[in-house]
């Protein structure tokens, strides 16, 4: 247990020392959010309808910037190899890495998405489902990101995103639907429950698959 706490601390330290890991998704998010009104329309009525989808898509795309961070540096400096050789429970280590990555790349965006109330004219009653659905949906996306990152380690190819985005489709649909439901006074709890179910269902599968994918690079 102490071992895993140490890894958790180490990961936190690495991410907090390297500011680009959490600043670049945030900057990307803010830039895109401010581009939508300019590119589409500044009419509040149009933006209000588009806001749930736009926010979710932007969050999804900004995770594309950060998912390579989960394993790539550890791969380059060789520490993944040591972790693999350590004989410890790899799934747990991967889980810690995913959690820290989520904490630094997704959580700031989720907090910032509050600004979308002003910038994209999202009605206030849409704010709660937005935050809840993002809090529950983004960990699933980070799971897919970890798998894509583990598979495309050391290669700068399109395969990572090409794998990750179609997998994230259900999360995107359920997430935006939750917000739209609440804007139309329909209960959105079923969507949140489904998002949670998807996360719980996929967590062991993806962890297992990511560990398998990591091992492939060291034959």
């Amino acid at each position, binding site marked *: 247990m102490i071992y895993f706490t140490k890894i958790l601390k180490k990961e936190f330290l690495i991410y907090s020392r390297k500011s680009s890991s959490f600043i670049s998704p945030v900057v990307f998010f803010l830039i895109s959010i401010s581009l939508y009104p300019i590119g589409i329309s500044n009419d509040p009525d149009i933006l209000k309808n588009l806001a749930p989808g736009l926010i979710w898509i932007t969050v999804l795309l900004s995770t594309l910037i950060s998912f390579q961070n989960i394993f790539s540096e550890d791969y380059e400096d060789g520490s993944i190899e040591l972790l693999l050789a350590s004989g410890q429970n790899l799934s747990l280590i991967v889980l810690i890495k995913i959690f820290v990555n989520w904490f630094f790349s997704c959580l700031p965006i989720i907090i910032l998405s509050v600004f979308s109330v002003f910038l994209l004219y999202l009605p206030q009653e849409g704010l709660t489902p937005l935050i809840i659905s993002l809090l529950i949906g983004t960990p699933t996306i980070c799971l897919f990101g970890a798998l894509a990152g583990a*598979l495309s380690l050391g290669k700068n190819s399109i395969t990572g995103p090409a794998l990750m985005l179609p997998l994230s489709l259900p999360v995107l649909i359920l997430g935006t639907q939750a917000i739209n439901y609440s804007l139309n006074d329909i209960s959105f709890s079923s969507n949140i429950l489904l998002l949670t179910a998807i996360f719980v269902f996929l967590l062991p599968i993806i962890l297992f698959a990511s560990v398998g994918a990591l091992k*492939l690079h060291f034959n």
Partner: protein
Amino acid sequence: MFQILKNFYHKLGSYPWFYKISGKVIPFVAVLSISLIVISSIWGLFFSPTDAVQGDVYRIIYFHVPAVSVSQVIYYSMSVAAAVFLIWRMKMAGVYIKSLAPIGAAFTFIGLLSGAIWGQPTWGTWWVWDARLTSTLVLFLFYLAIIGMQSTFASRKSADTAVSIITLVGVVNLPIVKKSVDWWNTLHQPASISISGESSISSEMLIPLLLSILGVYLFVFFTGLLFMRAEISTREQNKEWFKKLLSNN
């Protein structure tokens, strides 16, 4: 019976045995599949009755339905092969996935394209963001990811394992995608043929349709064997048995 199956399964893992057997099977499958496709196309295009509502446009069904149905079946068969590869390390399963992925992608594309051509006169639009179309598009993307993954690993075994992992994760996720887009939007007509229960299509149209489905499945079997033989010959080109085979012919 079980013993025979087990023997067959074990033999299937051997490249030379598969190469020999598939060479014998291919001509029959080729003739059968192509003649079935030709017969069902002529029957469907010229002799089956005109649809009361859609007119002659509906005849594209003889290409659309077989392509879409085979594209899903190929994916599910690939995921079985992926499980076989990950559990028993059967190298033939890797060959199977690699060879069938382009065929599956091609048929998914044919399905999407013929659907668009069918949709234009009947729905008045080439594309709608409907549940079935979207999940077929996602299937197509999965195929592309699998094909793209093949080239990212230097060693053949790692590539096969990576592709198997993706295929399995994809097959777990496909039902979720399907269900979630179902809630999202549906315009597509429900399936006309069902194995159990009454089909909602007249038998004069049904028989050529079933023939064309059978023909396309056999065609996939035929091209699959061809692709697998090609893949085996690239993997084994320096092996003794393959050189012997070449020098004998």
